């Protein structure tokens, strides 16, 4: 039995860590919980204004998930979202790495201006860009294909990745690259063999954000792709499950729950990379 003197030490984290964190956890998880609960409620309970909104009282139904799977093209939209997000993320991260390396490491006229320009590009909202981009997409002959999204998503992802990675690369000491160059590496080899392994957390962070932004994107997907079977999940769910003044709340929430899964999984798998400080070990 532990002595009473040790109790404060054991109880301390409860007050300094768990209790302060609880409201934030509740705040972050509440939308997911509400989505999940709503997706399992019967329509009659969803309509009942006297029902408690946060608990299920009249039995669970999987009917909303069933309707979503059988009566809509949900899984096609899911796959489309996945394909577009992965492709746009890979392209954007690769381009972002090259651009960020150039801006962080190379000395050339206007390097700083380029950096600022990229940052400003990132600030231009897609709601302004979609009109001119629709002309570009049309000229390229990419309308109504997933390629339209693979090509246009990097317009907001590349500036973001570049900007994020530029800052990250600058935190990596130049000396380790200079050592590699003394040993015979050229610029590209230095980037691939020395800098990138050190910058894995930064790259993963950029990839995660890029994937999340692509996965959640709505406007370009709505404007550039029309055929039902080519829609991404965000647009497909909205198009099919909001019919005028009838909202299919159960199915909408079921779609939102399933749509959240890839993001949740991605963050669960890569969270450690995301938060770990590998650079500290790299300079030993």
């Amino acid at each position, binding site marked *: 039995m532990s002595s009473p003197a040790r109790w404060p030490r054991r109880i301390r984290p409860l007050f300094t860590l768990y209790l302060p964190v609880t409201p934030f956890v509740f705040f972050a998880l509440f939308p997911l919980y509400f989505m999940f609960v709503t997706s399992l409620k019967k*329509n*009659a309970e969803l*309509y*009942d*204004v*006297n029902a408690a909104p946060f608990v299920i009282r009249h039995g669970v139904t999987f009917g909303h998930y069933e309707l979503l799977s059988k009566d809509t093209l949900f899984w096609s939209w899911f796959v489309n979202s996945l394909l577009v997000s992965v492709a746009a993320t890979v392209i954007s991260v690769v381009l972002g790495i090259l651009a960020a390396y150039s801006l962080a490491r190379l000395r050339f006229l206007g390097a700083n201006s380029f950096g600022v320009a990229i940052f400003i590009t990132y600030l231009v909202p897609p709601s302004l860009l*979609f*009109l*001119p981009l*629709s*002309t570009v*997409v*049309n000229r390229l*002959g990419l*309308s109504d294909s997933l390629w339209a999204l693979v090509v246009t998503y990097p317009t907001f992802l590349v500036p973001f990745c570049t900007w994020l990675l530029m800052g990250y690369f600058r935190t990596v000491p130049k000396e380790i690259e200079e050592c590699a160059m003394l040993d015979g590496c050229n610029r590209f080899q230095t980037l691939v063999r020395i800098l990138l392994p050190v910058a894995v957390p930064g790259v993963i962070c950029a990839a995660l954000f890029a994937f999340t932004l692509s996965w959640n994107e709505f*406007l370009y997907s*709505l*404007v*550039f792709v*029309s*055929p*039902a079977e080519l829609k991404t999940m965000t*647009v497909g769910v*909205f*198009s*099919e499950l*909001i*019919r*005028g*003044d*009838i*909202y299919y709340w159960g199915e909408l929430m079921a779609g939102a729950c399933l749509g959240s899964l890839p993001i949740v999984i991605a963050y669960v798998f890569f969270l450690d990379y995301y938060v770990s400080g590998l650079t500290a070990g790299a300079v030993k």
Partner: protein
Amino acid sequence: MASPRTVLESRRVSRRHFLGAAAGGAAGLGGILAAGRAPAVAQTRELTFLTVASFVPETDKELKRQFEEWGARNKVKVRLDIIAHLQLVTKKAAEVQARSGHDLTALGPGLGDADLYFDYLADLNDVAGDVAPKNGGWLNPNDYLIRGKWKLLPWWMPPFPMAVRTDLLEEIGEKNPDTWEDWLRVGKKGKAIGHPFGTALGHSADANVTLLSILWSYGGSYVAKDGRTITINSKETRQAMEFVKRLYTEAMDPEVLAWDDASNNRCLNAGKCIAIHNPISAYESAKKDKVIAPGTQREIADVIDHVNTPRGPVDRKATTGFWCVGIWNFSKNQDLAKDFLRYHFQPDNLSRWVDAGHGFNMPFLTNLTKHPVYKSDKQYRYIPEVAKVSVPPSWPGPTTAASQQVWDLYIIPDMFAQHATGKMTADQAIAWAEKEMQEIYAGRKRRP
């Protein structure tokens, strides 16, 4: 059998032939590349149609069936793309900007798109002329002409009757309410037993519809027939505003200020509201979902009735979303698109389409207002009556881009809500709305 020499000779190509064929091929390929499309003989003709998800899903299925049937008959590949109605504004803007997209497009809600996109829409005078005689004529053809032309075909409207809980009506001892004052009384009594009246007073299409209906029913309007003079500042508007203030404070809950288009459906189907001013969509979804009235074993759909849109001291008028269809003039398939419209607007096809929608989508054609579907369920009996008194939102003024902007910016709901909630006096709210409308109409004035 031919000798080897003969065969070889027959295959031999002279230099002149070779150069000629090569030049022809290069020119042809250049032409294809320059035009960006395959030669006519190699093309598969494709007609595309962008429309909004119907409030009754079976309508979309029937439209798709007709589109595919027409495509099969004419050997044309067809593609029907369906989006939520809230997405249509963005999609139209992008297609016009790119001068590319679908051939046929849904337009609306409202006829204002025809003025806004006047330069990008094909003339449909010929189609409108062909369609009308077969269907008993257009209901109010002058309303649908934009700058004197048919730039769109009015397609369907969801008329706004009054949906009411008959059991609650009986409970409060009311019978056959018909005027707006009757409904105020019903709402007051309903609110007293926990079942308020429900109509949106926020930024929603339903709020525009109901408040314009009240304004006209009290003799008011916001723009004159000339389409220039703002007429909102009138004693009739003040009377209408005083009525809405009483309706809001005595018969409704404050939540109506935050309502969207789905909220009144939910209020009725949840068993809370005694009545709502709305198309039959609430009833249709209650019927489909078999929603039970709270505290009873009866389905809500069994205790809902639909009656005529209310009459005011001066008139009985209403409006609704005027959903239309048009053809972009940058479409390469305008003739095909017109042909499909003629096909879809054939009496048989329109009839099947109305049937599929359970009467929700009423065409603007006289014969269709007498469709058997409106007698198939007693809930639908007043829909043709409401359709007859439904006018475009700019009434008595013409539909223009400016009137569409007044609708889109919710000037009318804001004016009513500011007074109803006591934030402004009636004079202040009217003065605000008048200034907003004058600026919109001045800004949209067409230059010669």
